[in-house]
């Protein structure tokens, strides 16, 4: 039982949960959030792969990748949320 196994399993579980949410959720915000969970799961996987038993130092490359992933994800989230807001306004207009 090392942290990499524990968190690896947790990461995959989070990814799976996120996937369920992304596929099943109808609420737009919730779908975005579920996708974010998936990305956290993917981050876990990479970090676990980078982890080395102390006193080894972890592989820095996946760390960089995860940071990139986080930034990419926040960009995508921002666009998706902007679309949600816009669509909401348009639908509200259409209803009126």
């Amino acid at each position, binding site marked *: 039982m090392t942290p990499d196994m524990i968190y690896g399993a947790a990461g995959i579980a989070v990814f799976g949960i996120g996937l369920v949410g992304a*596929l099943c959720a109808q609420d737009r915000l919730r779908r975005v959030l579920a996708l974010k969970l998936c990305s956290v799961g993917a981050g876990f996987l990479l970090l676990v792969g980078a982890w080395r*038993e102390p006193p080894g*130092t972890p592989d820095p490359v996946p760390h960089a990748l995860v940071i990139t992933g986080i930034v990419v994800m926040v960009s995508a989230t921002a666009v998706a949320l902007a679309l949600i807001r816009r669509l909401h306004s348009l639908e509200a207009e259409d209803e009126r």
Partner: protein
Amino acid sequence: MSFVALAAPIALPLLLALCLTAPQARALIWRMMPFAPLPALSLALLADPPTGAQADWLVLGLHLGLDEVSRLFVIFTALLWCAAGASARHWLRADARATSFGVMFLMAQAGNMGLLLAQDVAGFYACFALMSFASYGLVLHSRDNAAQGAARLYIGFVVVGELALFAGLVLAATQAGSLLLIDLRGAVLSDMAVGLLMLGFGVKLGIMPLHFWLPPAHGAAPVPASAVLSGAMIKAGLFGMMAILPLGAVAYSDHGTVLMAAGMVTLFAALLIGVQHTNPKAVLGFSSVSQMGIVALGLGAGLMVPAAWGAILPVLVYVAAHHALAKGALFLGTGAFAAQTGHAGRLGVTLALLLPALVLAGVPASSGGLGKEALKAALANASPIWLPWLVVALTLSGMATTLLMARYIALLWLCPPKAPAQIAPEALLLPFLAVAGGALALPLLWPVLAQELAAPIAQAAPGGIWPLAAGVGLAGAVALYAHARRIGPALFVAHLTAPFRAFGARADSLLAAKRRAARRLGHAVPKAVSQTATDWRLGQTAIAGLIAIIVLIEMAPTLPAQPLPTQTLPDPMPHSSIHLPQDQTLFPDF
């Protein structure tokens, strides 16, 4: 072989005829009518030819006997008489002149049997005459104008024929110096004698120009009588020639030429004349004439080239048997047809009639087809000058017969023959079917019956279909033409295309309906599927499903090979160990 056995075939009918005059016995005798030829039949079947017996005490010394040829004649003649007798019993049940018919019928039968069995000139001639004159009564039976005319014509020809025959026999007997037919066959006869004999027998055969009596007579006689007239009695002419003329011994090329030419003419002229008649039985009569033309061809060839006679003889016997059965069946069938009261019955009988008609026309491998082919083969030995013409003529005669038969069938429906009142529709069927069956089965039965005489038949080619097909086509064309003439060409074309149009329209509407249904379905199903997929968000499910399926597909083969390596030490990859600094190669131990 006892004389009694040989005489019984003649005696029994005569006896029955005698009894028929007694009113008390009439019912019984009529019932026995079909069995009158039985002695002849049993004799022919049981006897071992050649056999003979003589009664010198009778006439000029009566010789009765049976050789291989006459045995075969007796068999089919007797069969036909049987059937005709059975048929006559019903046909004449309510007829006022039944007794006279019965007497004549039996007497003709006796004559017919007698001439086949007789082996001396006098006996032969007597029986021949008995048969011919008794038949007069049969022809005259209905006493109406047509019958009167036909009977007049008939008797005229019979008389001439008998005269000629008589003269010829006399001359022949003189020149042969014997009264025995077998001696006549071996003797050198004068041209005159042969010519007279030919004339005499030619009348019976109905070879042109001696045929005038035949169709009217066959048309006028009651059905059972026509059957025997056409099936059995005209064969007497053939038998006579075979029995008396020195065929195979002496060449009579002039006579042969005449006979052949007459046969050739007969073959086609009968057709041309026949198609113009409207009485189906008269048409059958012409068909008989035409068929006898074929026989005449064979005889003529035999006369011309004696060497070929050995091959021709068995074929002619066969052709005679074939014609007797087929034509007898057709006549009896005409009666059966006339007796039918319902449409279905008529249709059934017509279909059954098609069989003997086709056999007669020479369907390949049927008795007709085989006979024709065998004859062609046999004639190959005869005159090389005539041969091609003979072959063409025989071939075309198939076509012609087909045409006649088509005409006959058409006339059956257009001018149906009349049957006596109060006749049971099914009564005449049995004899008809029996004879028709005989005609059909002839190729199978013949080898059993004829033994070595059957060889040419067994070796004959089955014959070609195309004369028949051409005949059918021509007949169809003529029918169509007639039909078109009757209803007008425009209407005719409309009628012709009507079934296609109707079929087309129905198919179109069916197709259109199916197409509409398919289109509805084609609109509805994708719409529903698409709606469901959208509503249920199946695309999302597909994402997960696909990943799962691919993982399963790909992992399935690897799983058994790779048990879960949960607790195993990971295998250090080569390239990783190369790059790892030494102080970091610490792997966790569990």
